[in-house]
């Protein structure tokens, strides 16, 4: 145990002394958070300016007139600025006012408006963009008046359903609506692609971390073999101590790396709630983070051990890239499937893949991020993955014998699988 701890300590210090590792694991998420924070500040200041301009614009809302031949308009909604709509008895009066510059345009509500629904907007400009500039004011007024002045009913019709969407099983912690969202008349609403990309984003973080951690381990074992340090290590510690020390240390490093990356995502979502136009109270559930870390550790245990085993069979450091590619194929395939199945997370294939240990770390996270997965499924997947970890670590520890490590035979998939099976 003491030697395992020494190996863990050494590997942690060595990895943390490598600027490339530190930058990738911790520098990138910090830069991302700082960058996003800066972006948010700039965007907020621009938004403030825009709001000011908008307010000025609102103050500049020009009075318009209307002629109500249908006799519908009894009240002007109280949330509109006063004198924004000026009533006229006849079109001639309205036209005179327009010519005198008292109003910018006027509406004509025909007598048979209720039958045809036609409404006329008379204005002197031909600019198509400015034509609709204020027309929502008359529409809103008609809504309210058609409903006998009931502004709440008009608002419900304006925004029917008032749907509170809960994407990604996200928890809404705050109520109400933000100014500028889809529920308020007069504003447009942007669709939010970010929420839909989040499952893929989180799964990509897990994937990248497992892949990079496993690759570091494969490279480390290959380089120790190449430099013959392995001979000294085998004469100082047991194969189990060596393998456990290396796998645990890189698992810890990966764990903190994933934590940093997920933390960065979490912070960005918190900082960027309004910047990214996220739903109010948007946040990643803690349960998702916990499952994420559980499946990360299990996935890492499986793939890092497999990489270490491959490293044990790789005679030369120069062969590392091709060996790495071969061993990471199952992970790549599950990543590929998860991209396809992210939109159908509860299809039978997605469920099966999320339970199968080699694809579970990626697929289950994808499904959990989308939501609606019954608890027994991640629990079963975690149990199966744990059994797989134990079997693989045991097999690879047996492969970690000098006989295999120093044999110098070339790497091949068949030899790898044969040795892995023989070691069980």
């Amino acid at each position, binding site marked *: 145990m003491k030697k395992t701890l020494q190996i863990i300590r050494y590997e942690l210090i060595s990895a943390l002394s490598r600027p490339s590792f530190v930058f990738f694991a911790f520098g990138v998420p910090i830069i991302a958070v700082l960058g996003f924070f800066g972006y948010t500040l700039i965007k907020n200041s621009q938004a403030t300016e825009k709001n000011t301009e908008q307010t000025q614009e609102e103050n500049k809302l020009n009075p318009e007139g209307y002629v109500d031949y249908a006799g519908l308009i009894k009240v002007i909604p109280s949330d509109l600025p006063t004198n924004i709509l000026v009533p006229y008895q006849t079109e001639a009066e309205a036209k005179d006012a327009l010519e005198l510059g008292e109003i910018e345009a006027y509406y004509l509500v025909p007598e048979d408006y209720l039958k045809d629904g036609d409404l006329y907007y008379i204005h002197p400009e031909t600019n198509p963009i400015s034509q609709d500039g204020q027309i929502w004011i008359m529409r809103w007024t008609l809504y309210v008046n058609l409903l006998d002045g009931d502004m709440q009913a008009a608002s419900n019709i304006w925004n029917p359903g008032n749907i509170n969407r809960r994407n990604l099983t996200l928890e809404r912690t705050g109520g109400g609506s933000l100014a500028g969202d889809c529920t308020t008349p007069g504003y447009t609403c942007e669709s939010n692609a970010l929420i839909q990309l989040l499952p893929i984003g989180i799964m990509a973080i897990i994937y990248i971390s497992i892949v990079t951690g496993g690759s570091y381990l494969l490279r480390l074992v290959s380089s120790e073999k190449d*430099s013959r340090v392995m*001979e*000294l290590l085998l*004469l100082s510690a047991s194969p189990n101590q060596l393998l456990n020390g290396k796998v645990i240390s890189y698992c810890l490093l990966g764990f903190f790396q994933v934590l940093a990356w997920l933390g960065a995502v979490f912070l960005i979502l918190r900082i960027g709630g309004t910047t990214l136009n996220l739903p109010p109270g948007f946040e990643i559930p803690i349960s998702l983070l916990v499952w994420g870390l559980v499946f990360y550790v299990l996935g890492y245990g499986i793939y890092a051990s497999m990489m270490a085993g491959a490293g044990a069979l790789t005679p030369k450091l120069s062969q590392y890239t091709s060996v790495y590619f071969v061993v990471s194929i199952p992970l790549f395939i599950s990543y590929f499937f998860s991209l396809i199945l992210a939109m159908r997370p509860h299809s039978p294939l997605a469920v099966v893949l999320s339970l199968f240990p080699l694809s579970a770390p990626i697929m289950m996270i994808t499904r959990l991020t989308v939501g609606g997965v019954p608890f027994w499924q991640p629990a079963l997947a975690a149990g199966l993955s744990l059994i797989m970890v134990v079997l693989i670590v045991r097999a690879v520890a047996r492969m970690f014998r000098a006989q295999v490590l120093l044999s110098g035979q070339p790497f091949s998939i068949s030899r790898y699988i044969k040795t892995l099976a023989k070691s069980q």
Partner: protein
Amino acid sequence: MKQVQVAHIAKSFGNVEAVRDVTFEVDKGEIFGLLGPNGAGKTTTIRVMLDIFKPDAGTVSILGGPMSEEKKDLIGYMPEERGLYQDIPLERCLVYLATLKGLSANDARRRLGDYLDRFDLLPHKNKKVKELSKGMQQKAQIIAAILHDPELVIIDEPFTSLDPINTQLVKELMGELHDKGVTIIMSTHQMHQVEELSDRILLINEGKNVLYGNLNSIRRDYAGHAVMIKTNETIPDIPSIESIVQHNSATKLILTEGTSPQDVLGALVAEDITLDKFEIALPTLDEIFIKVVKEGSEENNKM
């Protein structure tokens, strides 16, 4: 007490027989020379001895039995080349390897300081190993093998890349370890280094024992018909002397078949030659090795 007992070990890799039949024993506290040309099977023999490889045949007993995790801490090993992490500072590398041998990091650091100072490596302790010269790396490897005060030290080609001064330094260090009762197995193809240091040797060739035993006995066994003399006078024509070879300050007299050293001594005395030195000319290990290997090749050709 026997520190190492190797009996009839054999090891093959595919179709290549690296070791065919090697047997030897090493006593406690001796410096044992494991000799042979490149490719003779020395390194494979060491790896089998250290349980890095399992032998295909034969048995190994080390420190009184099979290799165990506890025994690993009592053994120091220096592989033939490299064997150190290249991308980390020298001090961290050596301290780590020592802690894996059971030393505390503080003790390792303290002992390391003394050795680094002695080997002129102290100013380089924070440099990455790959930034050091080959000779410096060789010295660092030797330190890695002895830092934890092992009972048994196995060093493979210890003098490679060392200049004469550092070679002498390493020889002195081995002498000190020998005085402290440490058992040393030194594998090399540099025969003259072994002649100076070893008590007993095993010479292997093509994976088999060729010569094994006390170094002086072996040399005596291989002593040919020759004597070394030192004299200031001209050597007269004596029928029993086949030829005369100048050998530094001495003269080597090659004797004819059937002549004994006593016969020549008698003849020289009879000629009234004043002798400062008269001794049987012992062959060097190089000479013995060449002779043995040639004989072996001739036998193989006959078969």
